Each structure stands twice: as structure tokens, then as C-alpha cells.
């Protein structure tokens, strides 16, 4: 069966997109890696768990309930690794329906064929490397949020929270609420940067009030907040023991650190959609029209994967994408966009600007520090490759294996691109992005091959000499 609309990624954008498409009668399927839809911010608790009331989870529950009632086919716990069809056809052939190859939650492979594809692949965290960042006990801010809000686990007893953006204060407040100790908050942003973000945040008084509550809680607990500063090193004996901020050494058994969010564009890159580098949106993003259409016909992107604007802005964007797909398929005449979208996007944009890559931090990475932790590639190796003539990210991969490990450059790509650009004195956009390739995620060979036997390979008759 060919679906009308497939949605890849069950976060707020994907849940809303699938709900919108299915409720207009389109044959709709939603594919999600986690056991339950929700995404990172609206993530559901594990089955059988109950936790403190949480506004994000309530927002997620509403989206989950609407999705369940919409009639969309929901495939959770599945790993989508293969993309085909669409423009990925032999040269000269007409565009085909999109195909998605996946492993089900039961390990059984399946394929989805769809006329339209809405990509809601979300975002992952940017951590700019520093000496000691590979020590166990150093964890992302978004990762800490999942531990604290979903798993109900403190990352440590005495925790340093560092990096940029509103997650800093969210994580610090959750640590305190969970009974942990925050040794310090190290905020890359200065007071001035926060002040300049305020007018845009005023469009979302709810977020502003939440931010103020977090700050008040830290103040009451006497947590030192160091502004305009960076973690310069982490050290310890096998696991984290100390965090260094310039001359200060702070004892800690966990460091939660993040320097912003990066849109997950592997699917739009694989489909060869046009992209542009927009630091204020998180980095490389697919070029979209006003209705979330990519440059590839019937391929749409919405939510943070199309440019970081936050969970609050994502459902509206997902609905806009779904309506564009319904229009383009001739299934419905959809209305115009949500009024709330622009306001949510404005507040999201102010936060995204604060979380944009800071080139000075990348410049400060010492030569011996590992940048690509999958392949163990240091800054010195990247600089050497640049000196040897690597100009683009793809060339850097060939020279060094940077970005070729199991994470496929998701963790190191941003820093590597910035280092390469700095070495050549060009803007980051000039070094390009890694060509999108399948598999999108590591997948066991046996799952791809099935019951493979060499005897099954059809051998064509030998060509006449």
C-alpha cells in the first residue's frame, strides 16, 4: 500500500503534522524511534512511571491524544535507516514515490512507500570540545534534561551546569528540585546578551515567567552563576572529578554542558534538497518556502530539524507542512497558517541566536583535544588536513575520517566545519556539509540482508568476448 503522507519523527512537529494529515482523510503513517511519541521536550515517561507535574509533559499528552484519535498509523520504536525514491532515481527517470526502510520495534524490517514525506527529525546538541570532554560524567544539557525529567535520575551529586541558552537554567533548576547540588552555572552569554533577548521573549510571557522562576530558584539556593565564561577543562581519574573555568577549579561529579542545538538534516541532505548555512537557525538548514516545502517536490520539513525555533513553535509548523502536502496531493484545500506560529517563532529565534555557534570557542580548542570522538580525530589532525589542502567537510572526512564514525558527524560536524573554515579564513558555509548517506542510523547487517545466500544472486550470462 502506498501512503499519502509519511511523517518521519514523532516530536511535536511530527505529531501535529500526522494528526493534521490523517484528520483530513489522508492515509498517514508516523515513524518514531522512541517507544512513545513526544520528542525530546515533550517526551513521555516510561510505562508504569509517574512523576512531578510538568507543563511540557501536559503539552505532549495533548498532542499524543490528538494523534491517537486521528487515525494515523503510528509506528514507534522503529529505526528508519534507508531513504529512497523521490529524486533518488536513475538520471532521466521520473520522480518516484518515497520509500523508507526501517527496522520495527520487534526487529522485523519493513518498508513504507509514500507520495509525500514530511521530515520532522528534530535537533541534537552541539558540544564544542574542550580538554576532558570525553570523560564519563560529562553529558549534554538536553541529555541531562531527559535524565532529570523523564528518567527521574540526577546526573551526579555535585553538578556544574555550563554552556549557552535557556536549557542551562532549566537543568540547574531541575537538579535543585530533584535534591541535587549545583556547584555553579557557567553561562557563555553575558548579562547584556540576555537583556537584548528580552524584547523578543516578551512575545511569550509564559516562557519569560518560567525563566524568571528558574533564576529565582538558583538565587535562593545560593548557586554561583558565572556569566560570559566557558569551561576550559574537565579532569578526573577515569571519571569526572573537577571542572576548570579559567583559574577556578570546581569539584564536581557531573558536568552538564551544551552550546546550542543543531538541526538534524541527514534526511534532507540524503534527498539532495537545497540547504543554506544560517547560524541563527542552528547551522545548515533546508531551504523552505513559506509553507515548509523543501526544494524537492512533495518533500517537507518542519520543527527544529528545519531551523531551531523550539518545541512551542513546532506543532504549528508541522500543521503548515501537512496542509501544504494535502494541497500538493490534491487531497484538501487547507487553510492558512496558525496565528500563534509567528509569535512562537519570534521567541524561539531569540533563544536560537543565543545558542548559535560561537566561533571564538572553537578557535580556543587546544591542538591535542579530540574533536571527533567516534574516530579519535584531534584538532591538530584537522588543522594538518586543512594545511594539506582539505577545503570542504567531505574532503576533511577523506583526509582524517573525521565524521565517519557511528554518529556520522552529528556530534563533531559543527566544530570540524568551524575549524576548517577558520583555517582557510572563509565563512563556515563555504566548507559545505557532509553529503547525506544511508544508513541514517547504524543497523545490523543481518537486518538489511535478511536470509541472504550467495546462491540467491542472479548471475547474468557472460558477455560475448
Amino acid at each position: 500500500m502506498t501512503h499519502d503522507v509519511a511523517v518521519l519523527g514523532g516530536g511535536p512537529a511530527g505529531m501535529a503534522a500526522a494528526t493534521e494529515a490523517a484528520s483530513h482523510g489522508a492515509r498517514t503513517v508516523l515513524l518514531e524511534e522512541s517507544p512513545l511519541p513526544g520528542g525530546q521536550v515533550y517526551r513521555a515517561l516510561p510505562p508504569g512511571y509517574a512523576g512531578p507535574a510538568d507543563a511540557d509533559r501536559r503539552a505532549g499528552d495533548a498532542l499524543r491524544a490528538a494523534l491517537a484519535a486521528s487515525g494515523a498509523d503510528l509506528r514507534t520504536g522503529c529505526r528508519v535507516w534507508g531513504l529512497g525514491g523521490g529524486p533518488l532515481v536513475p538520471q532521466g527517470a521520473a520522480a518516484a514515490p518515497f520509500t523508507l526502510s526501517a527496522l520495527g520495534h520487534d526487529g522485523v524490517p519493513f518498508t513504507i512507500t509514500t507520495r509525500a514525506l514530511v521530515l520532522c527529525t528534530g535537533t541534537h546538541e552541539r558540544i564544542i570540545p574542550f580538554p576532558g570532554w570525553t570523560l564519563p560524567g560529562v553529558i549534554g544539557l538536553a541529555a541531562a534534561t531527559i535524565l532529570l525529567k523523564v528518567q527521574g535520575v540526577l546526573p551526579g551529586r555535585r553538578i556544574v551546569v555550563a554552556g549557552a541558552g535557556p536549557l542551562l537554567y532549566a537543568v540547574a533548576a531541575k537538579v535543585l528540585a530533584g535534591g541535587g547540588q549545583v556547584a555553579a552555572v557557567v553561562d557563555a552569554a553575558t548579562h547584556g546578551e540576555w537583556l537584548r533577548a528580552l524584547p523578543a521573549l516578551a512575545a511569550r510571557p509564559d516562557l519569560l515567567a518560567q525563566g524568571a522562576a528558574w533564576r529565582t530558584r538558583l538565587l535562593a539556593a545560593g548557586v554561583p552563576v558565572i556569566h560570559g565564561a566557558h569551561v576550559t577543562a574537565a579532569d578526573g581519574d577515569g571519571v569526572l572529578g573537577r571542572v576548570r573555568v579559567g583559574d577556578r577549579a570546581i569539584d564536581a561529579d557531573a558536568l552538564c554542558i551544551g552550546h546550542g542545538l543543531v538541526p538534524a538534516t541527514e534526511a534532507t541532505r540524503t534527498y539532495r534538497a537545497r540547504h543554506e548555512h544560517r547560524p541563527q537557525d542552528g547551522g545548515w538548514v533546508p531551504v523552505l518556502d513559506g509553507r515548509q516545502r523543501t526544494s524537492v517536490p512533495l518533500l517537507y520539513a518542519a520543527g527544529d530539524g528545519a531551523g531551531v525555533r523550539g518545541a512551542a513553535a513546532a506543532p504549528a509548523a508541522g500543521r503548515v507542512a501537512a496542509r501544504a502536502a494535502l494541497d500538493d496531493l490534491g487531497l484538501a484545500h487547507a487553510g492558512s497558517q496558525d496565528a500563534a506560529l509567528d509569535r512562537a517563532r519570534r521567541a524561539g529565534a531569540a533563544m536560537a541566536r543565543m545558542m548559535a555557534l560561537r566561533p571564538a570557542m572553537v578557535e580556543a580548542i587546544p591542538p591535542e583535544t579530540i574533536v571527533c570522538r567516534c574516530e579519535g580525530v584531534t584538532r591538530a589532525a584537522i588543522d594538518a588536513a586543512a594545511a594539506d589542502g582539505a577545503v570542504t567537510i567531505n574532503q576533511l572526512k577523506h583526509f582524517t575520517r573525521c565524521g565517519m564514525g557511528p554518529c556520522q558527524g552529528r556530534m563533531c560536524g559543527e566544530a570540524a566545519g568551524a575549524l576548517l573554515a577558520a583555517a582557510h579564513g572563509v565563512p563556515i558555509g563555504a566548507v559545505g556539509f557532509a553529503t547525506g548517506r544511508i544508513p541514517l542510523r547504524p543497523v545490523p547487517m543481518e537486518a538489511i540482508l535478511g536470509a541472504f545466500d550467495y546462491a540467491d544472486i542472479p548471475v547474468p550470462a557472460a558477455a560475448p568476448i
Partner: protein
Amino acid sequence: MDQRIAAFSRPAAVTITVRGRPVVAHPGESLAAALVAAGLWRFGEGDDPARPRTAVCMMGVCQQCLLRVDGRLVQACLTPVAAGQVVTPA
């Protein structure tokens, strides 16, 4: 040591085996969270002691938390705890 937050209620604890030692965990929580809760941040040595296996992203992206559960290679952050699992380094 248990770093679980008391305000959460969970299914009754079970025992898993981590590198030959019993570890108390709760069904449904991620294996990565269970190890962090037990203070076991270092999941394995990997290919290089300078970049050992550990939890980093908790959302299935970074591939640093690889472990073997009953011999099968998994991402600890995406794998729910179940009673009796035998966890070894990858």
C-alpha cells in the same frame, strides 16, 4: 549510591548484572539512566581509553553508550531495563 529522584514513582526494582556485579534497576528506565543512577558512569573502555564508552546525548544520536546486553550490541540510552539482563562492555 542511588541518584534516583524520590518524587518519581516506578515499577518495583529488579536486578540486572553489570560486568558480573548485581545492580538494582527499574523496568522501563533506560539502561544508561540505570547505570548513571548507580554511579557507574564509565560503561566500558571502547577502542581508546581517551574516549571510553559513556552516556553523552541520551537520545540515540552520539553512539557513545554502546553496550552488550545478553551479548547483543545496543545503545544503552535506547534500551529499557528488564529483569535479569546481563550487561557487558562493548
